[in-house]
């Protein structure tokens, strides 16, 4: 039996070490493109870790949002920085026959003066502003919080009172059968409402930066167009499924929203545009719909003598469903808009 218990532990150890190794590589790689790819890999491994921790909701979110959306955002940002770089660098850089070569130029901020540089020189320019001695000192200093936090975690080892039982006891009244969704939308719905606001805020922030460039209009790839025609409806279907399944199993508005956002991005990449008529208030309406519906639901119940965001038992289920649908739509639109960047 002992060996059987050790195997999962060994897997977990390997996973944990992989996490740390990937993180280290992602943060120290001299090549930015590689760093981003390693970071995405880190997100995927984290997804596995979440599965190992029985947190399937988080695993889904991690892969869809943490690795997927963040990764896509990072890559898009990199591409935009790169294209800006290519303009300034006079595009005369010798291209190596290597897919890493292209990212080298953007890893090198001083490309204007020094168009070609070896990886080690790149490291100096982009790496750290700190002298090595200071870095070592910092690393040594950081051993203190490392050890301290580790020790505290060790102290937390004994199970403490959580809220598992309380959630289970009130699950019935929450309107959904899946505990995480119940917490997210009902017990701590106030947080989720504000979290939606944060997401919208990020988009407002991005749009307020006037100089943020649009995603470039690349030439059409027929294969991509074909794939997106195939995938887009499917993704919408998947998103709907995720919303629906969220009521009793892992899934929900955020995961669904990110799938929807991905669909939007894909459509956009394959040449589809939001019709100009709809880029004004109709688009904005879609963007704010989630927060508006959520907030109004929360306020409307007050008129019926309920507390803020307190849904009467019978009404909880439809209310939450409406909120989730609106939220999914908004999240999808916001994520796609974030990826595309620039103002409509």
């Amino acid at each position: 039996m002992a060996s059987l218990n050790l195997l999962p532990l060994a897997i977990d150890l390997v996973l944990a070490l992989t996490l740390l190794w990937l993180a280290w590589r992602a943060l120290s790689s001299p090549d930015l493109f590689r760093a981003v790819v390693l970071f995405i890999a880190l997100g995927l491994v984290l997804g596995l870790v979440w599965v190992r921790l029985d947190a399937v909701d988080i695993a889904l979110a991690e892969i869809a949002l943490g690795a997927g959306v963040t990764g896509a955002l990072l890559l898009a940002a990199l591409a935009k920085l790169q294209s800006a770089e290519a303009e300034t660098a006079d595009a005369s850089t010798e291209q190596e026959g290597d897919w890493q070569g292209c990212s080298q130029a953007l890893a090198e901020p001083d490309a204007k003066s020094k168009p070609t540089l070896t990886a080690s020189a790149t490291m100096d320019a982009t790496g750290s502003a700190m002298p090595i001695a200071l870095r070592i000192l910092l690393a040594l200093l950081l051993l203190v919080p490392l050890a301290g936090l580790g020790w505290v975690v060790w102290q937390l080892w004994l199970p403490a009172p959580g809220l598992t039982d309380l959630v289970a006891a009130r699950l019935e009244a929450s309107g959904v059968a899946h505990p995480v969704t119940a917490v997210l939308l009902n017990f701590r719905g106030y947080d989720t409402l504000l979290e939606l606001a944060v997401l919208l805020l990020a988009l407002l922030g991005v749009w307020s930066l006037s100089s943020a460039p649009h995603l470039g209009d690349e030439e059409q790839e027929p294969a991509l167009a074909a794939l997106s025609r195939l995938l887009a409806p499917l993704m919408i279907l998947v998103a709907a499924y995720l919303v629906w399944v969220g009521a009793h199993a892992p899934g929900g508005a955020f995961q669904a929203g990110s799938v929807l956002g991905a669909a939007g991005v894909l459509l956009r990449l394959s040449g589809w545009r939001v019709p100009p008529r709809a880029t004004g208030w109709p688009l904005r309406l879609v963007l704010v719909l989630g927060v508006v519906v959520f907030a109004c639901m929360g306020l409307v119940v007050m008129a019926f003598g309920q507390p803020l965001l307190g849904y009467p038992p019978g009404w909880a289920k439809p209310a939450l469903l409406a909120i989730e649908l609106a939220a999914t739509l908004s999240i999808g639109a916001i994520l796609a808009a974030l990826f595309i960047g620039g103002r409509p």
Partner: protein
Amino acid sequence: MTSVLVFALAGVGLIVLGFYALLVQRHLLRKVLAFNVISSGIFLLLAGLARRAPGAEPDPVPQAMVLTGIVVAVAATALALAMIQALRAATGRTWLGDDGDEE
């Protein structure tokens, strides 16, 4: 559940690693990566320890919090990336400059 401890400790490692990189790295994109690594470490700590009670269901409350946290981190990342691009467009730099007058 020893593996919970392993992951929680890995989370601590990620936090410290990310913090180090946030201070040491100059390129803003790397700082964004570092911030995301820190967040992931905290999430591991927060939701990882929710699995402590052996055999029982994991505590859904920290899980929901982590979900919220992930969304917030995505939002922050998006804003940071857009700001990097704007800074790049305005100054040609992808790292933080001194605070002197640049106009």
